[in-house]
């Protein structure tokens, strides 16, 4: 009889976790000596508003969330990713990740292939980019090819992407020169409050799972404060396991530049934490974590990145709902579930991502919908409950509308403690959602602080 028990965490994507963080100050100084120029990291702006900060990509690469990617992609890798969602090494990867600079900055830096560039963040040394290649891109072309078009990807793309789409704007706003090569963090940033206790890069997440004795873990992707439907989804999905439900339920929030109107990241992580602090999910099987990434809202494309991040963290199962990581009506609302059930050939997947060469081990759980049904007297699963006209469907936009009108969401929608966390950050920021002021200020303070580190003399000039 085959053993049906799952005895270990899935192996990292690409075989091993990338960790490119130098913690020895002497080694960091030696590496800085080799650098020929310094560059201050700037946010990517769209119409003057920050939509991306490459520092988040550097963090997620160097701490292994995006393993096996080790740096800013070469031209060949970018082409390979856009053509077939694979790195040149053959491993599945969905998005081009590049270190882009303006022509003016490139000329000022005077660097080329073979040079090392010191990257500074918030005025302090942060990381080194070992430049292997310099090439030009056409940002608009990268944007279109990243997300697909109705002609090229008719299975799931419904309408052409435009400037109402945040992810599309990120790629359109890239600078035209790319410096490709490996990143190494040489001055480890300190994560700011309240994010510190939720910082579990893949290596630490795996250590924590092992410490807790978990071998089956299911993840909930979030960019939202949890309503009771999310909570039901997490609890019910966690019945997936081996001979018993999953040992752990992990929430992994995506933290980064966001859309106006979303909840502040601080409220998102703390409201999820409140589910275990207030006893709705036992903290022994619930963990809140986050990944630094400026969401591209790429629905099926984004789901691949989510799969990679979470598999690298050691997670066995991934919940995918309708409209996963989506914005607007560009994709079929079930695009992610189509990818993870039969594949999307035009995006390079003749089969689901777990059945292709170079694919993922994480197993999807494609979920329909939970709604509140007063007749069932529960948060009912849509494939079970047939009480049409009685049940109420959840909608994040609807709930935000309630809050906007000054109405307290009832406990059928938000646990009272969860709503109080929203109020806590509302009081602090003067607004319950991301507005222009919040987004600008948070892009200045970021999620990290950097310890002071002296620059070598030759870089002070």
């Amino acid at each position: 009889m085959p053993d049906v028990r799952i005895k270990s965490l899935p192996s990292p994507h690409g075989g091993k976790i990338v960790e490119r963080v130098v913690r020895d100050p002497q080694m960091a100084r030696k590496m800085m000596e080799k650098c020929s120029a310094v560059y201050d990291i700037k946010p990517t702006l769209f119409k003057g508003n920050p939509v991306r900060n490459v520092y988040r990509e550097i963090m997620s690469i160097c701490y292994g969330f995006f393993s096996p990617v080790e740096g800013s992609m070469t031209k060949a890798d970018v082409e390979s990713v856009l053509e077939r969602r694979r790195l040149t090494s053959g491993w599945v990867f969905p998005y081009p990740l590049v270190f882009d600079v303006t022509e003016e900055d490139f000329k000022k830096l005077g660097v080329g292939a073979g040079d090392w560039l010191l990257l500074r963040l918030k005025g302090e040394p942060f990381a080194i980019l070992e430049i292997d290649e310099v090439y030009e891109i056409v940002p608009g072309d990268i944007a279109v090819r990243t997300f697909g078009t109705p002609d090229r990807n008719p299975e799931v793309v419904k309408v052409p992407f435009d400037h109402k789409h945040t992810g599309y704007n990120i790629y359109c706003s890239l600078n035209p020169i790319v410096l490709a090569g490996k990143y190494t963090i040489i001055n480890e940033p300190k994560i700011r409050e309240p994010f510190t206790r939720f910082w579990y890069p893949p290596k630490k997440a795996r250590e924590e799972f092992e410490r807790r004795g978990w071998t089956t873990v299911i993840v909930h992707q979030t960019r939202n404060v949890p309503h009771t439907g999310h909570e039901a989804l997490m609890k019910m999905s966690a019945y997936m396991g081996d001979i018993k439900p999953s040992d752990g339920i992990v929430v992994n929030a995506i933290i980064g530049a966001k859309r106006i109107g979303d909840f502040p990241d601080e409220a998102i992580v703390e409201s999820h934490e409140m589910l275990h602090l207030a006893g709705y999910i036992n903290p022994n099987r619930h963990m809140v974590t986050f990944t630094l990434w400026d969401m591209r809202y790429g629905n099926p494309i984004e789901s691949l990145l989510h799969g990679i991040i979470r598999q690298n963290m050691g997670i066995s199962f991934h919940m995918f709902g309708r409209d996963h990581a989506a914005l607007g009506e560009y994709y079929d609302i079930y695009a992610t579930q189509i990818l993870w059930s039969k594949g999307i050939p035009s995006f390079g997947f003749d089969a689901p991502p777990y059945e292709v060469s170079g694919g993922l081990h994480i197993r999807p759980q494609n979920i329909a919908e939970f709604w509140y049904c007063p007749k069932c007297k529960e948060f009912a699963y849509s494939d079970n409950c047939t009480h049409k006209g009685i049940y109420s469907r959840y909608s994040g936009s609807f709930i935000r509308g309630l809050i906007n009108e000054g109405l307290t969401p009832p406990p059928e929608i938000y646990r009272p403690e969860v709503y109080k966390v929203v109020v806590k950050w509302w009081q602090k920021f003067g607004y319950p959602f991301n507005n222009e002021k919040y987004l600008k200020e948070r892009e200045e303070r970021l999620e990290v602080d950097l310890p002071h580190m002296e620059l070598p003399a030759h870089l002070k000039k």
Partner: protein
Amino acid sequence: MAKYFGIIVDEKRLAAIKGTALEEKVEPIFGGALKRLVLEVSDELGQKVIDSFSKARFDARGYIEETPAAFKKLVFKKIIETKSLGQEAMEMALKEIDTIKDEVAKEDMELPAPDIDISDVLEMQKNPVQKPV
């Protein structure tokens, strides 16, 4: 395909429609925890509403969501004036959109936080289960 515009009916709004035909159209949602009126509008009119506000969008249920609170107030006023949940209430509200411009702009900048006691959650947060690693 029709689009929908929901207006939450609190006690004040319920009082305003008491005894009218509109009162009968109030529907309970979330097991009666909330009450609402629903306007059905054409796709085209729905799109006009979306185009009028930067954050507004259709949600997965086909509802027009994330419009300013000031706009919802205006639509409710027009529902009372027209005594109907038809297109005309929405059309009239859109015609008068300029009258709420300042209110909408203010709403984007600040919203007063509710005055509720959150000391219990602050207390719980003093002893988080997850500690910084």
